[in-house]
């Protein structure tokens, strides 16, 4: 699988340095550069717009407090994925679930493309039925385009465990959707 979504902001390292020195505009640029990735991981995991935004905001607030530890753009991306995943799991353990209407769910649709909205909705719903680690592994694989070894690094789990999560999660999704292998 190819790398993650294309970079729209090429000057991250410079922004990183300026942000670490307390430049809020530079930090704002960092947020705008990575907000879709962070929000999307949280959204695909939680399927709740408000909670996904809350998690994403907390991730960036944590980043602000720990900017000095970030060494590069690649490190920043890795750090954001890992912290977002951890916060998603923390959030799911709190168990603050609420009913999300179909309109609300559709409110966070992806950019216009040829995606079948019914299938997208159904896949999103099915994803919520998977255990947290499987959900995260599949999100990292299909949203971020990470290889299993990269997923293992982000989620801090052995390669075989990642492969197992992917195999079981995808198997369950295929079965629920009636897709043949």
């Amino acid at each position, binding site marked *: 699988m190819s790398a993650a979504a294309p970079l729209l902001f090429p000057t991250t390292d410079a922004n990183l340095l300026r942000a670490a020195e307390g430049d*809020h505009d530079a930090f704002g640029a960092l947020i705008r550069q990575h907000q879709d990735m962070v*929000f*999307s991981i949280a*959204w695909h995991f939680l399927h709740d717009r408000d909670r996904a935004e809350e998690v994403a905001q907390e991730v*960036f607030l944590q980043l602000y407090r720990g900017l000095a530890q970030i060494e590069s753009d690649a490190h920043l991306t890795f750090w954001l994925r890992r912290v977002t995943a951890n916060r998603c799991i923390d959030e799911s353990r709190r168990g603050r679930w609420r009913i999300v209407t179909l309109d609300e769910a559709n409110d966070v649709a992806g*950019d216009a493309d040829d995606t079948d909205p019914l299938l997208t909705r159904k*896949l999103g719903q099915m994803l919520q039925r998977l255990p947290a680690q499987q959900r995260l592994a599949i999100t990292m694989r299909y949203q971020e385009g990470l290889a299993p070894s990269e997923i293992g690094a982000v989620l801090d789990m052995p390669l075989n465990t990642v492969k197992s999560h992917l195999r079981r999660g*995808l198997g369950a999704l295929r079965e629920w959707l009636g897709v043949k292998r």
Partner: protein
Amino acid sequence: MNFDDDLTRALARKSAPDGFADRVLSRIEAPRHRTFPTFRRIAAAIVITAALGGLTAHQIIEHRRIEEGERARRELMTALHIASAKMRAAQRAVVHD
């Protein structure tokens, strides 16, 4: 169309809500302009009140202890004066007899 492609499309990145970055930045900037938080003010007031109350109680107790000591001293001196007077009276009676 295969399952992997469907999943890739279904799990494509979504746009963060409008104004997301501004909301994060406002949460960062808010503490700089915020004065001492209310709950901390309340906690500080409770601690100061308790400390002042404790100090006042200690001073009252100490004052009472000193007063009681003074009164006991006065009573002792009075008792000694009475005893001394009676001793002198008894001594005079013995000498006259």
